[in-house]
């Protein structure tokens, strides 16, 4: 059992997400940074898609009621286990009644707390992810609160030791990335050509500031208003995380894990699948720049990401084999 010690963290149980139900309006939910979720799970010897606690850039304290192997991965938040500082993006054993304190991160946003055995909340529509708007899945369909007790699967003796990973913001940095500014690669979307020439140019040249009104549903961006060449009356169409919509005369919104499944605003671009984690980890108030790519470049980026994921798996297997 793990006990949650804080209110107001907005933390929730998430796995990879709930797929196959968008046709009836149920979006995927799931980890905002699926790459960090995968790393956290692999570090504790879980399947890559097991359920973990997603901490959205807020402080959180938990108590491990029993001895467990855990990992905290993602935003690079400072954390202490019974007052002892932890390495970022690492796994450690915790003894029974140990207290983990996660601080507010400074460079990233979403952190994942994985436990050997995974969190055993009920599977609803094929997933343990919390559907916050629908109030189902996860732990009672809601964010975690003080006093919540979360069960996890049986601990396994072969997951042990203390070791960590180099974060992807280091290993997979893009040219121009700097503190407070992240680059993400974007394919022009269906209505791109319907935007005015100046608005299309502004889309690529602006350092878009992520508004404080951003959350798991989407990131709202602050910058110049984007205009259509001529107003467009659109039928509602399908949406998925990464789609960037821009209401005529408004600013872009990047749809993310809790996005609605359909919408009627024009789509100006789509963040490539390999870069969704970059969006999720960009802190509120920091800037995003969109880099135009074509489909072949998107495929190449996916191959680079997959090679890095394979490297991480090998490193974790090596550390475990050495009994680190």
């Amino acid at each position, binding site marked *: 059992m793990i006990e949650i010690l804080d209110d107001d963290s907005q933390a929730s149980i998430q796995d990879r997400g709930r797929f196959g139900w968008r046709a009836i*309006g149920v979006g995927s939910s799931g980890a905002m940074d699926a790459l960090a979720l995968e790393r956290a799970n692999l570090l504790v010897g879980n399947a890559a898609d097991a359920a973990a606690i997603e901490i959205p850039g807020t402080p959180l304290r938990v108590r491990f009621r029993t001895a467990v192997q855990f990992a905290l991965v993602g935003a690079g938040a400072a954390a202490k286990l019974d007052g002892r500082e932890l390495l970022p993006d690492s796994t450690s054993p915790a003894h029974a009644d140990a207290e983990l304190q996660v601080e507010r991160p400074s460079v990233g946003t979403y952190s994942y707390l994985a436990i050997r055995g995974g969190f055993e909340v009920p599977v609803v529509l094929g997933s343990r992810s919390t559907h916050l708007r629908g109030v189902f899945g996860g732990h009672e369909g809601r964010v975690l609160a003080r006093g919540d007790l979360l069960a996890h699967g049986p601990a396994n003796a072969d997951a042990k030791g203390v070791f960590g990973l180099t974060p992807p913001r280091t290993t997979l940095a893009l040219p121009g990335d700097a503190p407070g500014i992240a680059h993400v690669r974007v394919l022009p*979307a269906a209505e791109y050509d319907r935007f005015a020439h100046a608005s299309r140019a502004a889309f690529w040249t602006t350092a878009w500031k992520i508004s404080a009104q951003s959350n798991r549903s989407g990131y709202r961006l602050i910058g110049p208003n984007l205009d259509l060449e001529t107003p467009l009356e659109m039928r*509602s*169409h399908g949406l998925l995380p990464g789609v960037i919509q821009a209401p005529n005369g408004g600013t872009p919104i990047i749809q993310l894990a809790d996005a609605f*499944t359909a919408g009627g605003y024009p789509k100006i671009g789509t*963040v490539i699948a390999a870069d969704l984690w970059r969006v999720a980890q960009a802190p509120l108030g920091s800037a995003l720049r969109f880099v135009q790519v074509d*489909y072949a470049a*998107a495929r190449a980026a996916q191959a680079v990401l997959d090679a890095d994921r394979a490297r991480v798996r090998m490193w974790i297997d090596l550390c475990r084999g050495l009994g680190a």
Partner: protein
Amino acid sequence: MALPAAFRIRPCGDAALTVEFGDTVDPDLNAQVLGLDADVAAAKLPGVVETIPTYRSLFVQYDPVAADFASLSQALQSLAENAKPHAASGRCWRIPVVYGGEMGFDLEDVARTHGMSPSEIAKRHQAATYRIYMIGFTPGFAYLGGLDQSIATPRRAAPRAVTPPGAIMIGGVQACVQCQAAPSGWHVLGRTPMRNFLPSREPMFLMAPGDNVRFHAIELRDWPALERDAARGLPVAELVSA
């Protein structure tokens, strides 16, 4: 025999594409979309994660590691060329609605816009038979076509941050049955106690694309009992043949 509908396949990022049939709200186009959706499900194409049938297009999400745009669009092309339109379900939902007042707080504004009385708007809203074109936006939200054009109303300039569960709304030429509270720029004419999506109920969903919908007015005093029934899992709406 009707010729297969014209369609085009367009990418949506590197993990999704759309098969688009025309650009209008048309039951025949929607039947093509639903027919293709059924064929895609049956074909179990490698890499397809999920689909969203919409008014006039099929949205297909795929795993960019297991599939690519060229091979997937080729497979969809041959399915779409041979797809049979989805046969009408023959089902019609009679949905109870409390119109106006606190349940339909935009009814009077909409009436003013059209120079009609609120009861005339409600009457015209109830006179039509609607088709469910798609379910989406939020769990169980049903997008309807078939709104009487004399009461079609452009969306609100400023969307509301929250509209209530069960809101019966119109926006432009579209109409809807909302299930869960959500932001919206549509006009709230009334509210139904019916819950199209209830995770604790079997079946979890009641209405499907291709079904028909009709509305009938109920009194505010009938609301509490019907809402209790709906929370217990009763359909509240009546299922009749179309």
